[in-house]
Structures are given as C-alpha cells and as structure tokens.
C-alpha cells in the first residue's frame, strides 16, 4: 500500500502541478472531466451494454404501461412490479463496473482530498502539531515522554508541548514564518521522525496527519509515508485550515468534493451520448 501511495502521490503531484497556481475550481473541473470520461469508458467496457439497454427499455415499458392503464389498478400494480424487477436487474448489471471502479475511485479521491481538502498555512498563521503516543506512554499519572520538536528556519515553535496524559498526546503550537516546504523533526529515544509542513497558498499536497502503518491508515491518509513501526508515536497531526475550493466562507474539508461530484455527474451525463455509453 505504501509503495502504491508513493507512486500515486508522484503521479498526482505531477498531474495537478499545472493547476497549483490557479483557482482550485479549475483543477477540480479538469479532474472531474477526465475522471468522468474515464469512468464512462470503464463503465462501457466492463458492463453489458446491450443488456442494460434492454433492461432500461423494460423499465420504460413499465412506466408507459402505468400511464396507459391508469384506470386499471391491477395493471398498474403489475407494471410497478415489473419496474421494480427490472430496476433490480439494472442495479445488478452495474455491480461489475462499480467493482472495477470503486478501488481506483477511492484511491483517486483520497489523493485529491489532500490537494483540495485543506488550505495551506500562510506566513504568520498558527497551527497545532499533535503527537499521539501508543499505550506504552502516558495514561493518568504517566511519565511525560521525552520527545522534543525541532523546527527548520521558516517555521517557529511558539508554545508547548502541552502533555495530556489521559489522551497520551503532546501538542505544540507552531507558526509559519516564510513560504516553503518544511520538515518538522521529532526526536524520540528511538530516533528522529519527520512531519511535512507546507506554507503555501497554492494547491499542493498537504498532509494533515501522518499515521502508523496499516491498510486503512494508508488508504485514508496516503499523503505521507507511514510512521516507522519502531516508534511509540501513533500519529502526528498538523492542523491545516479546512479547504474552501476557493470560496470564502465555505470552509470544510469536503467542500471540494461537492463540486467534484456535481461536475463529474454533469460531465458524465453530457458525454454519455458522444461516447455511446448506456448508463
């Protein structure tokens, strides 16, 4: 998973770099278009198009029957039954293409999330660095872990850490001084661990969390390599502000996805006939 993420990160960083200085909606629209086309083609190649056409005809016939015999309750009920039956058949026919698409779709969305779901730090902005430790550390009355944080020039450690034993968590407050890509260094008894920090207003990959290895951790947070297994650190968080897809006041980590889904659907429906795809 880590190897795959590494490839995907490079691929998406390169593919989205032409849009990094543009309004976020431009990149989202282009990705939606490309993905809409790609998914249409996958759908076309992996689904039984003739059967789908036939099933849709059956559904239309059922609807027609309802309109035609609207004074005959028995006929209407029979038509509804037919429609439901063919609807289920239609759904069944979409399972295979959906299975083909679901994995790449999740991987792609996960990559996009870390390009568009968060805003970068601006110089002067503050953020929290939260380090979550495993069971071996802390607990109520637990000993304060000997972990220190070092910041490169361009970042400033303003306060901390605060140690919250009940949550096994150390938190620092940092602030951005200059634009740039940085690595914070956490020093533990087992060695050094880094955490990326991007001080930039452009659309670039940002990692709000670096997690320990694990399939779901890597599936959902692919923006950075997993933490080494030898460390007691389970997660390092960085509080990037939520993204807004370029629309002030619409701050949410999922704002971009609304635009992405709507645009993908629009593109897919607009292009289904030119691409001769039955949906």
């Amino acid at each position, binding site marked *: 998973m880590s190897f795959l993420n590494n490839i995907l990160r490079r691929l998406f960083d390169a593919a989205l770099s032409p849009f990094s200085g543009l309004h976020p909606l431009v990149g989202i629209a282009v990705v939606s278009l490309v993905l809409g086309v790609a998914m249409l083609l996958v759908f076309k190649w992996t689904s039984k198009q003739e059967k789908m056409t036939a099933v849709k005809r059956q559904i239309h016939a059922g609807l027609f029957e309802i309109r035609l015999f609207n004074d005959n309750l028995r006929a209407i009920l029979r038509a509804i039954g037919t429609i439901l039956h063919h609807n289920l058949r239609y759904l069944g026919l979409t399972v295979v293409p959906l299975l083909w698409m679901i994995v790449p779709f999740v991987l792609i969305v996960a990559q996009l999330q870390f390009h568009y779901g968060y805003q970068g730090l601006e110089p002067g902005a*503050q953020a*929290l660095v*939260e380090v979550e430790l495993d069971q071996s550390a802390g607990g*109520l009355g637990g000993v*304060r872990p000997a972990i220190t944080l070092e910041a490169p020039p361009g970042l400033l450690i303003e*306060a*901390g*850490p*605060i*140690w*919250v*034993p*009940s*949550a096994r968590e150390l*938190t*620092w*407050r940092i602030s951005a001084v200059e634009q740039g890509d940085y690595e914070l260094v956490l020093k533990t008894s087992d060695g050094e661990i880094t955490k990326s920090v991007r001080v930039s207003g452009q659309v670039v990959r940002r990692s709000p969390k670096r997690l320990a290895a694990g399939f779901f951790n890597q599936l959902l947070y692919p923006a950075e390599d997993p933490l080494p297994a030898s460390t007691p650190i389970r997660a390092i968080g960085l*509080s990037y502000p939520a993204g807004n897809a370029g629309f*002030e*006041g619409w701050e949410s980590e999922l704002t971009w996805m609304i635009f992405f889904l709507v645009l993908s659907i629009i593109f897919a429906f607009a292009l289904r006939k030119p691409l001769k795809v039955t949906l």
Partner: protein
Amino acid sequence: MKPWSGPLALALALPLLACGGHGDAPAQTMIVLGIDGMDHALTQQYMEQGILPNFSRLAREGTFQPLGTSSPPLSPVAWSNFITGMDSGGHGIFDFIHREPDTMIPYLSTSKTEDAGTTVKLGKYQFPLSGGGIELMRRGEAFWEVLEREGVESTIIRMPANFPPTGAATRELSGMGTPDVVGTYGTFSFYTSVLFAFSGQSLNGGDVYEAWEEDGVVEAKLHGPDNPFLRESEKVTTEFKVYIDPEEPIAKLEVGEEERVLEVGEWSDWVPVEFEFIPTQSLAGTCRFYLRSVRPEFELYVSPINFDPMAPGMPISHPEDYAAELAAATGTFYTQGMPEDTQALRERVLSREEFMAQAKIAGEEIRRQYDYVLEQFQSSSSPRRFLFYYFGNLDQISHMMFRVLDPEHPTYDPEVDSKFASVIEDLYRNADEVVGYTLDQMDESTTLIVMSDHGFTSLRRQFSINTWLKEAGYLAVRNPNMSSDPGLFVNVDWSRTRAYGVGLNGLYINLKGREPNGIVEPRDRLALIREIGDKLLEVIDPKTGVPAVGKVYPREESFQDRGEEEIGPDLVIGFAKGTGGSGQSILGAVPKEMFSDNTEEWTGDHGMDHETVPGILLTNRPLKQAAPRLQDLAGAILAEFGIEGFPVRKSD
C-alpha cells in the same frame, strides 16, 4: 473589491460624465478621522512638545481649534450631534442611558430590540412566525444620506450611535452601540477555581463561573443569549474543555472542533463558537481566550462573545457582506462597539497590564482594517467620495489610565504608575502616526479632517445626585437603612419623590402624567427645575472645598433643536471639572455617600460640564464653513462638497 468592479464602475460613470450629471462638479475626496476622546489641551501640549509632527503639519497648513462638544459630553450624544448636525432635542440621544417613562426601567439609548411577533407554541418550544428586529433610536438625517443623494460615495466605518447601520452609505460598519451576542455592550466571562471568587459582588460587564480541574481537565460552558425557541427563558450554551499540563504552565483549549494551545499569560486568536438553538438554527460567535493561571488556581478570561463577522447574527454592516469582506481581508475582528474591556479592569478580573494587552490587540485590529479601507477608498474610481473612520482606543484607554497624568488623583501611585507613565502620550503618538500614514497615502486634493467628539480630564471625585436629592428633600427612600441599594429605583418612594437622577448627567422631574407615579404638576415643573438647579450650583465638595457642579442646563435652554426633547432629562448636570456622577446613582440607586473619592480604575472622564472638555478639529486646509461646535461639522463637511442647508430642522 472585485477585480472587475473598478473598470465596470468607470464604464458606467462615463455616460454620466458625458451628459453632465456630477461630471460638472470638481473631483472631491475627503477623509475624516474620528478619534474619540482626543483632548484639545493635551493635543496642544504634545504638539508644543514636538511629539505630534503630523498634527503640527496639519495645524500649519490648515486649522487647529477646539471643537465644542455636546451637552452632556458623552460619546453617543456627541457623535449623534456630529451625524445629524442637531443637538439631542433633534436626534433624541441624551445619554448612554435613558429611562422608559412607563416602567422607569433604564435602557441603552441608541438602539432598541423588538421581540418576535406571533409565535407558535409546542411543548417547551416556541416558533416565531415573524422575526424580531432592532431599531436605531437616533433620529434625524445622517449627513452621509445627503452625501449619497448628491452622488458622493460614502464609507462610514465604526461611526458611534449607528447600530444598526442606516444602510444609506455605500459601505458602513457599525460602531459604538453594537452589542455582543448576548445583547450587551460587552459581557466577559471569567472561569476560576478560586472559592467564592467575587462573592457578594455583582460584576458589571461580566460573569464569573466556578471551574474545577478534574484529572487534568476543566470542563465549562460558554454562555450565549436566551434561546428564542424556548418558552421559558434559558441561555443557550456551548461546552468547552481545557486540558492542563501536569507540570508546565500551559493548557490546550477545545471548543467544538477548534483547538488552541495557550501558555499562561497568552491571548488566543479569535476562536469561532456556535450556539445551537434547535438543530436547524444556530448563532455564530467568536471570542478570545486569555489563560491567566493554571496553578495553584485555574483562571481563564473569555472576551465578550462577538458576532462572527463572516456570518453575523445581527445587521452590523451595509452591504450585509461588508463585514465579511473586511474579515476576509484583514482577519476576524471585534464587532462589539467598544472592544476594549474596561469593565474587566474595573472589576479587577484583568490587571492593568492585561487590560493594556487586550486593548492593544483591539487597537491593532482596527489599525489593520484602516489600511485596507483606506486602500479601497484610494483605489475607488468614484470622483466624489467620502471616508469616515473611527478610532476608539484613545478614549477607552484614557478612561482607565488618565491617572498617570494626575499625581493628585486618589489612586495615583508613583511606583505602580511609573510603568504606565507614557501610555496616554503613546496614544496620541499613535494617532499622529495614523495621520502621517494617511497624508502619505492620499493625494493633495483630498481634504483631511481629524476630529474628536470631546476632550478628557481626570476624574477624582464622585458625586451621587440621587443622594443629594434625598438629602435636599427632593427624593424619598422606602428603607433608609438599606445596606446596599441594587439600583433600578427599588428603594425610591415615588409617592414622596419630586426629582430623580438616571444616566450620567440626567436629572428628571417625577412629573404627573409622564412618570407612572408622578407627583409634580406640569405647571410646577419649570420652577422646580430652576430651584434644584440653583441649589445644585451651591453644592460644595467638603473635601476639596470647590463646587461639585459647574453649570446646569434646563432642557428648554440646553437644546435648540426640537422634536425629540420629551425623551430627555429635565435638567442636564454639568459637573465641575474633576467630578463625575457616581456609578450607582447612574442606574437609579441611592447610595449612602454623597461624595466619595474615585478609587476605581476608571480614572479619566469627560462627563462633566461640556465647556470644560472640548474636542479637537484639525484640517489640512481651511474649511469653507466654520465649525466651532461638533454639530456644525457635518454642515461644514457638506459645504466642502458644495451642499448647503444641512441639517433641515423640523421648524424649517
């Protein structure tokens, strides 16, 4: 501003220019900087000392003069005089506090909230079918309404006594008088583990809550307004947690999804908070936290919860999204009208150093915003435009720190106050820096006016008007032995009371037919006013041996404008310089002491005889029309744009 709005405005203006319109008028731009509380004598002194070079430059090139203030010289009154060109008799603002004649309940004078109309009741809930409202109580036409009518694009930022904004200017942000989310001028919260902290005292302008650390965590609630969807009055709250480090003086705040790390002695940035009324209705607010101590006792100050300018729950700007534009450009800001938390210092919840730090934060926000507003103003394509920008920092800090200029003040301590010796001077230097910045940014054809609403002086002594009225036989109390009068006239025996004081300078006759329990016949009113006025002028402060009252102004003589005079006091008391009304008397209490030393942190004031505390008027060129008084200034400003005949009085 949108990138296309400049060219578009120009394109739209071209036809107008071609066919006359305002194209015949010369291009005119004017900037007015309103600096609340800037005192004429002090300004002159600092100018002579050479520490206000930009002010001196203006004085050389234009005018520098005292600007006669309002009677009484209180900010809402004074700014209303400026806005309308009329005195209180015309605009209806006589004090910070008025009293409702039907109920005798004091209320804030500049705006009034109206509850929602019909509601549908369902169990413990109620659902309003129509919204409530908030009404600006200032009457008369604002001078920028005339400017806009005459084609002058106006930007009015933080004008006092302008909440809700008139909506007449191109851009407006409301100022003094804008409430916090609970509807007050600012209610802070203080969370403490100190047992019985402030017990027995009611705090003005703040609430104290006990907060205990348990397993390293303090859990508490932020308190919002009453929930309008509940039939029974109940404040809406939102929870927050403070995680305290077991060893270090540092804590982590958790409010909803927001987290902040604060060391002891640090202020947070603005933290958004949300108060949920019902699942589909909530109110967005924002506040700052100050971690005062984590051990041995936990102490956390939370600023009054302000409206979130990105989604304000009340109309604080015009257009409605202008507040959001300002916040997006320069950051979230105090939306409450008077952001400096003077009450927290008065109640000693904040120390002087802490208050100064808080006031600095507020001042910097307003200064940052000025740069943006001025830049927008300068880049506007409109040939005729007007900007008013208000600075309240000097006034509020002068109230709390004026003692440093007065070694004879009862609370002056040379050792303690030496730390703050230059505070007032620094405020004037800051104002000078703003003027210098403005002069650098503006072109030579722009008229610059720097003005203040009133001056300042030391407040050494307090005089309780209600206690004097009682001693003089004009006011009777029900219980002469009441140990602590809570105010609101609870101890006043109306059946034997002929006059009473409420507000900072107001004295009212208990008039039959006007007051609910009035006993004075209307025909006796004027004679009684004169009798009381004459006696007040004879009152001598036993400690200082000087009169407590400099002048008195019966309503009929004090106010030349008419229409709203019935709201106001029958007599305006012009306290002698150095003396002010007692804080208790202002809200209808009858304290035991008639005179007392002012031992509060509030050591500077201006609520005296208006002739003793003039403001200033500085311009970069002589004005076409003289403005000896604040209420003449709006007319003079309009005259600069070639507009005559302001204000239009009712009698006109």
